[in-house]
């Protein structure tokens, strides 16, 4: 999968901005291996 293409899945903190306000959640996204 992502590992084979030189990338790895990482947990990322992302912001959500709705009419009721802003909050953050932790999601998975792939990124270049550092």
């Amino acid at each position, binding site marked *: 999968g992502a590992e084979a293409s030189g*990338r790895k899945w990482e947990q990322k903190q992302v*912001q*959500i*901005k709705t009419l009721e306000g802003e909050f953050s*959640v932790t999601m998975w996204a792939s990124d270049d291996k550092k």
Partner: protein
Amino acid sequence: TRTGQDAFVMGFDWGNYLRERNHRAAPVSCFKHAPLFDQWEDVGVGMKVEVINNDAVLPSKVYWIAYIVKLAGYKALLRYEGFEGDTSHDFWCNLGTVDIHPIGWCAVNSKLLVPPQTVHQRIRDWKAFLTKRLVGAKTLPVDFYIKMADSMKYPFRQGMRVEVVDKAQLSRTRTAVVDAVIGGRLRLLYEDGQGDTEFWCHMWSPLVHFVGWSKRTGHEIKKFEKKKDMANHPTFRKIYCDAVPYLFKKVRSVYTEGGFFEEGMKLEAIDPLNLGSICVATVHKVLLDGYLMVGMDYSETPGGADWFCYHASSHAIFPVGFCERNKIDLTLPKNYDKTSFSWPKYLEDTASKPAPSRLFNMDCPSHGFEAGMKLEAVDLMEPRLICVATVRRVVSRLLRVHFDGWDEEFDQWVDCESSDIYPVGWCEITGYQLQPPVSADEST
């Protein structure tokens, strides 16, 4: 003869076409030469994205969170969060073209996430709902579109000179100049300006070579008066240069120790004049660097004008018996039919020997193609046209591609790694015109 039509102008829609007939599409991961091939492992069903909210009545553009329900090539069927099992607002998007972003993009870019009006009242606490739906889920990588832009940069540009097969006489090449590059496909103009001067091929096509290739390998090249060439053409005068060898796809090295292809050896080969046929064929000439001039034995064209250059590592040539082993109809030489032809007898009749099977490149990657999968494929008899097509049959690494709505006689054999086949949605990404299925009721 096909005439060019624009599928989108004609009302063709890949999403509806696939849904109405419950078709599958070949995944992007089947196409090594396609944009985002390396990134496609990062994309999957269930993945969350931020996308324009089309179910809002606000004056400004707002976004909402959606997830991928289904993938078909570059196309993704999306469903907004909050709709649960309700499919009524599902919509197709091209992941390579539209306003689709990783979760978090709206906050960073000061865009507002607003729930679709249809479900706004269904959920009381949107924060709790979204937190539950998003925590631990996957989203697009932030560099998705940067990688995509990188994978759509091509080393060829207008004004570069190349040597390419002469479509008026397959056994020779002609010099041509790149006029346009679209999605890695080259619009070439023959430099001598004679006859129909346009030719299309992918930059990795085995038909196109660097300037000097013909002389180096011993391939025939059409000569013409230099003063008429494109160097003097007003469009190309200032940008004219030879495309250098490293821009072209490298062919596999061949080792001739222990024997190589020899003149007169028999084999089976895809007919370059009828790509739906595999024919009894002969090696007529061995060139340098592993190239062979191959003629179809049914042909009576004098002087070898329809001989075709295949590299020894080509996946379009096969050892004798390949078709029989794989239940493919073999196109036979004149004066033979199914009852009178057998390879041993034919070799005896023609006092020839078969090319040893060890000389053929028969490796088969796990390509992922299956019969029934939809794709966009070049009509190689009219290579400026890319058509809605189906993989009709898979034989090891060989695909029989059917052009939707066209008779079977137009089917073509292509290799699974051919740069002339593309994922669903490729034309939309690159801005290339897609040819719709031929019948009007199939296309809309």
